[in-house]
C-alpha cells in the first residue's frame, strides 16, 4: 500500500490533481521500456496480479497484460466466460477466493457500476478499475491525458470536447474528472437522449451540434456509439447518427485551428468517425494505445508501493526474461 495513490485506483473523481500528474510523470520513463529490444524491467518481480475481466475486452486487457509483463509481474487472466462467475458465483465469493490465494493486485473490468469499489472495499489486495459499468475507466482517461500532453505540451487551458454517447460512457466520466482537475476546458456534445442528467454541474459545457464542437475545441475525443443504443431507442439509426454527429473530413476542414482527434476504441468506422479522419493527420488514436501501456505500468508501479522518484531507476538494466 502506498500513500501516493491509496490502496486502489477506482476512478479519477477521488484523485487530486497532484496524484493525476504524478501518474502521468511516472509514465514518462516507462514509455521507453516498450521501445527496447527486450521489453522487460524487474520493478514488479514477485508480484502476482489477476486480470479479472467479467466483460469482454481486447485492447484494455492486452494493454494491462503487457504493462504487467513488462514490469515482470506474474499474471493470471480470468475471463467471465467459462469461469465460476457463469456458474453463479457472486462477486463477493470471487473476491474472497482471490484474497485467499494471496494475490497482490486485481485488475477488474465489470459491467456493473461500482463493482471495482465493491471489490476494493472487501479485499486487501490493490484493485485497479479497468472499467466498471457506466462509472469510470480511469486508466483510459489517464492515457488520454498523457496523449494530449504529449501532443499539445500542456493540459491546462486546452479545450477538449467529448463527442457521442455521454450517458453510457465511463470513458467520458473519467475524462471529465481528469481534464477538469488539470485545468482543461471541457465540453460534451451528443444527442440529448444520450446526455446524462445534471452533466453541466460537473463543470462542463454542453454543445448541441458537432459543428459547434469542431469550431470550439482543440481536441475532440470521439466516443464509441454502441449498436444497442439504437435498438433501445435512444437514437433513430446509425446512419442518421453519422449524418448529424459523425466526425468527418468535411466537417474538420471547417475547424478554425489545428484539431487533434482521439478515440478510445474500438472504433465504428462510418458511425461516429470517418475512416479518413481515423487514419488521417488529425488522429492520435494509435499514440493513445501506445501510451496506454506506459500509463498502466505507472499505475501498477505506484500502487505496488514503487517510489515515483525511483521510477527511472526501477527500470534497471534491460533484463533478460528469467521468470
Amino acid at each position, binding site marked *: 500500500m502506498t500513500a501516493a495513490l491509496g490502496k486502489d485506483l477506482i476512478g479519477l473523481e477521488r484523485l487530486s490533481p497532484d496524484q493525476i500528474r504524478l501518474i502521468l510523470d511516472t509514465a514518462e520513463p516507462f514509455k521507453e521500456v516498450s521501445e527496447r529490444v527486450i521489453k522487460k524491467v524487474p520493478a514488479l518481480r514477485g508480484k502476482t496480479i489477476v486480470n479479472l475481466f467479467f466483460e469482454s475486452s481486447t485492447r484494455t486487457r492486452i494493454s494491462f497484460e503487457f504493462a504487467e509483463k513488462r514490469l515482470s509481474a506474474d499474471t493470471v487472466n480470468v475471463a467471465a466466460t467459462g469461469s465460476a462467475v457463469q456458474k453463479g458465483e457472486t462477486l463477493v465469493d470471487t473476491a474472497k477466493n482471490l484474497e485467499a490465494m494471496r494475490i497482490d493486485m486485481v485488475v477488474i473490468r465489470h459491467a456493473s*457500476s461500482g463493482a471495482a469499489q465493491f471489490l476494493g472495499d472487501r479485499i486487501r489486495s490493490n484493485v485497479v478499475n479497468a472499467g466498471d*459499468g457506466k462509472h469510470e475507466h480511469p486508466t483510459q482517461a489517464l492515457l488520454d491525458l498523457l496523449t494530449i500532453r504529449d501532443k499539445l505540451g500542456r493540459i491546462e487551458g486546452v479545450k477538449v470536447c467529448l463527442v457521442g454517447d455521454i450517458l453510457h460512457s465511463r470513458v467520458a466520466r473519467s475524462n471529465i474528472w481528469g481534464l477538469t482537475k488539470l485545468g482543461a476546458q471541457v465540453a460534451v456534445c451528443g444527442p440529448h437522449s444520450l446526455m446524462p*442528467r445534471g452533466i453541466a454541474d*460537473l463543470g462542463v459545457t454542453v454543445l448541441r451540434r458537432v459543428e459547434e464542437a469542431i469550431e470550439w475545441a482543440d481536441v475532440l475525443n470521439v466516443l464509441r456509439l454502441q449498436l444497442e443504443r439504437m435498438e433501445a431507442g435512444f437514437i433513430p439509426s446509425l446512419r442518421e447518427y453519422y449524418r448529424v454527429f459523425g466526425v468527418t473530413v468535411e466537417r474538420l476542414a471547417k475547424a478554425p485551428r489545428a484539431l487533434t482527434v482521439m478515440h478510445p476504441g474500438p472504433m465504428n468506422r462510418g458511425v461516429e468517425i470517418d475512416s479518413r479522419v481515423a487514419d488521417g493527420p488529425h488522429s492520435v488514436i494509435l499514440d493513445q494505445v501506445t501510451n496506454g501501456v506506459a500509463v498502466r505500468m505507472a499505475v501498477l508501479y505506484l500502487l505496488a508501493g514503487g517510489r515515483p522518484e525511483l521510477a527511472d531507476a526501477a527500470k534497471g538494466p534491460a533484463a533478460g526474461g528469467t521468470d
Partner: protein
Amino acid sequence: MAAPLLLKGGRVVDPSRDLDEAADVLIQDGRIAAVGPGLGAPDGATVRDVRGTVVAPGLVDVHVHLREPGNEDEETIATGARAAVAGGFTAVCAMPNTDPVTDNQAAVGFIVRQSLRAGFARVYPIGAISVGQRGQQLAEFGEMVGAGAVAVSDDGQPVASSHLMRTALEYARTFDIPVADHCEEPSLSAGGVMHEGLVATKLGLKGIPAAAEEIMVARDILLGELTGGRLHLCHLSTRGSVELMRRAKERGLRVTAEVTPHHLSLTEAACERYDTHAKMNPPLREAADVAALRQALQEGVIDCVASDHAPHAYDEKEAAFDDAPFGIVGLETAFGVAYTELVQGGALTLPQLILRMSTVPARVFGLPGGTLQPGAPADVVALDVTAGWCVDAARFHSKSRNTPFAGRSLTGRAALTLVAGEIVHDAPAAAQA
C-alpha cells in the same frame, strides 16, 4: 381474561380526540376502559408505572412486506409481527407480493391464520389487484375481503394498464376498500436503480426520473375522479407528486397517500459509494423533495407515514448496486427516525406525528385502533421520547438487517406495546432478559 391493567403517570396523546394531557389509562377485557387523571386501580389490577413516557394509540403501518409465504428466510409473519410491536406498531398491513402471490381467498386466509398463531401485532392482509400481480385479470376482491383482506394492491409491480386500474377502482367500491397503488411508469423506470439526478450521473447508474412516479400519480388521480373509488397512493417520493396530491385534495377528491420515514429523511446522496442499503423503489430523491414531503405530511396533503418494511437476506444486498434488490427494513426504526427527523427537526409536533402514524392510517384503511376512546381495543404504545439509542441491526427482531440507519443515533422508541390489552413488547424487560 387477564387482570385489569392501569398505565399510570404517562403523558397521554390521543389525536383521535385531540387529547394531550397527563393521565392514566385503564385497560380491562382487552379494551380501553377509562382515560383520565388520577384513575384508581380496580381490585386485582396490575399497575404499571409509565411516568416519563408518552401513552398513545398503537402505531399502524399500512405498508409492510412480511415475505411469508415464499421467502421465510427473510421474514415470516411471526418475526415481522414481533418486529412491529418492538417498533410500537400494533397493526400492520401485509402486501401481497409473496410467493405465491396473495391473490385469492385461501392465500388471504393463510396470512390471517399465521398471524393468529404468531400473536404480537395484528396483521391485516392486502390482496392483489390482479391475478399473480401480472396486471391482466382482476383478482377476486370479494372473496379476499370475505377472508380478511382490508385493501388491494399490486405493490412491487406498477399497474401499467390504465384500464385495469380503472376497473379495480370501480370494482373495489362494492366492498368499500382502498386500492393502493405503487406509482411507477414502467417504461420510464425500466432498468433504473436510483434517482435520476447528479449522483446517478456521477456513479454511472441508471436513474429513475421523478416523472416516472408523477405520471402515474396524475393518472391515478384522474381515474379516482372518474370512478369515485377509494384511491391510496403508496410511498410518494417527489415534490411533483406532492403538488398533484395537493390539487387533488383541494378539489375534494377521495384520495389518500403515504410516505416512508426514509423518504422523509434521506436523499440520493445516501447511494454514494454504492451503498445498497440505500437502494429502494421509489428511490431516495433530492433535498427539495424531502422538504416538500415533510411539509405535505404536516399539512395533511400526505395522510400518513408507512414503513414499506422490505426485508432482504444480507447476502442479496452484498452485491453490486445494479444486482442488489430494492428495499429496506423499517418497522424497528420508523418511529425513531420520524421522531428524530420530524419532531426534533421541528417539522411536526409529537401529537401530529402520532396522528400520522396511528389515527389516520387506521382510518384510511378502515382498521380498528388509532384511538384511546373508551371501548376501543386496547392497542396501546408507551413511547420513550427522551432517551437516545443507537440503531444496532444485529438486535432487530426482524430476520433481516438491511437498513441504511445502522449506527445512527435516534431518539424515540417503544417502551411498552399492548395489543388487545396484552403486553407484547416490554423494552426494559427485554433488556434484562
